[in-house]
């Protein structure tokens, strides 16, 4: 009997699984695309702002002060999450201050020092970076360059998707438990009806009368039970007269 009920709900359960799968995949994809796009834009925008700030603050230092003050300035900005390196070159491309350890990477030494466009960099033995630049005094005093670590963005995406998957999995688990409970609740009258039908068949053979609480119910199960009893008696004219006294009209109320 239970097997019949499980078979009855196998397809709906599979449908629920499928639905959740589609929701999880689609929302994760949207999440990745959105977070990646927005974070990249935000990081780049912030880095450009920081580069501009350093460029503005550098003018006086480059023209009037010792370069240790310039180094001290960029060291403070290096503490901002996502900023991996900062370097400042003068108008001749000479490095005036930088944060590289153990030395300036060859890829950066070979690049155009006055470029202020966004550049993707893959430094040897290191992560991937997005580099932005800002001119100092319209470029006549040099250029500030800031490198953002792309792995920070990847990590943020992983964290966001992870949190979302955790939420969806929790909802999925609660949903499955609720679905099974509700389906069992819905299956109970069907189970009772089946038991009643079997009992009715057995009683028919043995010539006994069958009484069941199902006959009192005011729902589809009650109507079906009464319908079974009606057909049972209709098939046996000898009992029909007796049955007429106790069997309600099929489809009627209890």
């Amino acid at each position, binding site marked *: 009997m239970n097997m019949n009920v499980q078979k009855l709900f196998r397809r709906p359960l599979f449908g629920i699984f499928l639905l959740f799968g589609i929701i999880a995949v689609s929302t994760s994809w949207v999440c990745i695309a959105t977070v990646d796009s927005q974070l990249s834009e935000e990081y780049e925008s912030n880095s450009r702002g920081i580069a501009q700030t350093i460029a503005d603050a550098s003018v006086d230092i480059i023209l*009037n*002060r*010792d*370069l*240790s*003050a*310039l*180094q*001290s300035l960029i*060291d403070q900005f290096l503490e901002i999450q996502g900023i991996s390196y900062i370097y400042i070159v003068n108008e001749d491309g000479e490095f005036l*201050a930088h*944060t*590289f*350890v*153990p*030395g*300036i990477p060859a890829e950066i030494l070979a690049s155009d020092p006055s470029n202020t466009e966004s550049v993707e960099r893959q430094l040897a033995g290191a992560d991937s970076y997005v580099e932005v630049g800002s001119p100092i005094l319209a470029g006549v005093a040099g250029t500030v360059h800031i490198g953002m670590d792309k792995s920070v963005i990847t990590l943020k995406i992983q964290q966001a998707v992870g949190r979302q998957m955790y939420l969806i999995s929790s909802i999925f688990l609660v949903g499955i438990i609720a679905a099974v409970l509700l389906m069992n609740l819905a299956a109970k009258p069907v189970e009772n009806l089946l038991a009643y039908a079997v009992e009715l068949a057995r009683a028919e053979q043995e010539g006994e009368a069958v009484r069941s609480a199902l006959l009192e119910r005011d729902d589809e199960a009650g109507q079906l039970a009464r319908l079974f009893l009606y057909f049972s008696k209709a098939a046996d004219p000898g009992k029909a007269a007796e049955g007429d006294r106790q069997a309600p009209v099929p489809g009627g109320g209890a």
Partner: protein
Amino acid sequence: MNAFTRRKFLQTTLLGGLASPCFGLGSAFGQTNTAGAARASYEGVSDDEILLGTSAAFSGPSRGLGIELYRGAQACFTQVNERGGIRGRRIGLKLYDDGYQPVPSVQNTMELLLRDQVFALFGYVGTPTVTRVLPILKKFQEENVYMFFPFTGAQPQREPPYGEFAFNLRASYREETAGLVENFLGIGRRRIAVFYQADAYGRSGWAGVREALGAHGEQIAGEATYTRGAQYSGSMRRQVEILGRVEPDAVICIGAYGACAAFLRDAVDLGLEVPIANLSFVGSENLLQLITDSVEDSERYSRWLVNSQVVPSYEDESIPVVGEYGELMRRYDPEVPQPLRQPDYVPFEKSFVSLEGFVNARMLVEILDRLGDAPTRARLEEAVFTIRDFDLGIGERISFSEQRRQGMQRLYYTVVDRDRFVPLDDWQARFG
């Protein structure tokens, strides 16, 4: 102090004002800034004490610098206090540990000025720390807060906009690097590379080398950096490889003893056998000790060392101030007070750093004495400017003025002979 928080800052600021001995009903009325009034009325001077404030490295990889500088200064102050102090006031020193890190040094300075209300700042260690503290001095300029004799030769406390808030005694890094470059060029070593700490200190020295080479039409042959706080146990092989590729004739190091000793070790091990110079800040004895304690044939490494110094050799007790220093170090053997004491650190009987601390303290005592019986911060600068052609007993006359805020200029070069630093007289004979 490491656990300093905004809440604690507010608490100390408020409580500092409330706890001030001059804060009372009378002074509170009619004042819009009672904390400021309390500060102004105390200023670190009481009937029996002049309180100075220090933030320095007493822990971490560069602790030897802060500890030795303090020991030298304290030898002088202890003697002065035993003799009754300065016009009846003993000299007190409030110490904080910043571990040679900028953020704690800023927090410590705020504590010293707002809570402890010291008379002046004295004995700070390091460029990245001092550079970040200088703006605070400008902020407190109306209260005449000055920094005396920081253990750094960087330019920011020697030039505008912050130079007017600090007084320096030692020669600058610019002078030290120029001296090293001149001597290397003089013996035909023209390809000079730089190994430096990736911060304001390293950049200051790098800029000095660049400028000195530029004056002779030369450029820095190559450069490599390390992160502040690197220890001797770490590897500097990548830095040696970077510099080795440019085949330098000499390397000038701008760093602290742990990293510079590691660089010397790895350079010689990898066959980069050229003169390796260090600035006075390095902590020469600490550096040499790391080498001698860790390798069997230490002379193979130390023979390439040449360190510039801003004070004469502590072995030459014929120099009056050096003789006095030696005697007082033996007599008092000062220790860093608890809880800043480092149980595993064994101080040197004498060192260039502690001698510099002693000389700094001697100079400050003279300045404080010139303030007379009622010392105030407002008259401090004026007292400093009365120092003209002053003989401190170091073999160099010392003067200060509005335009001259660095007392000494003389440099000394030292090399290692039988595990001791000795004066270098002949560059050609040693490295030619």
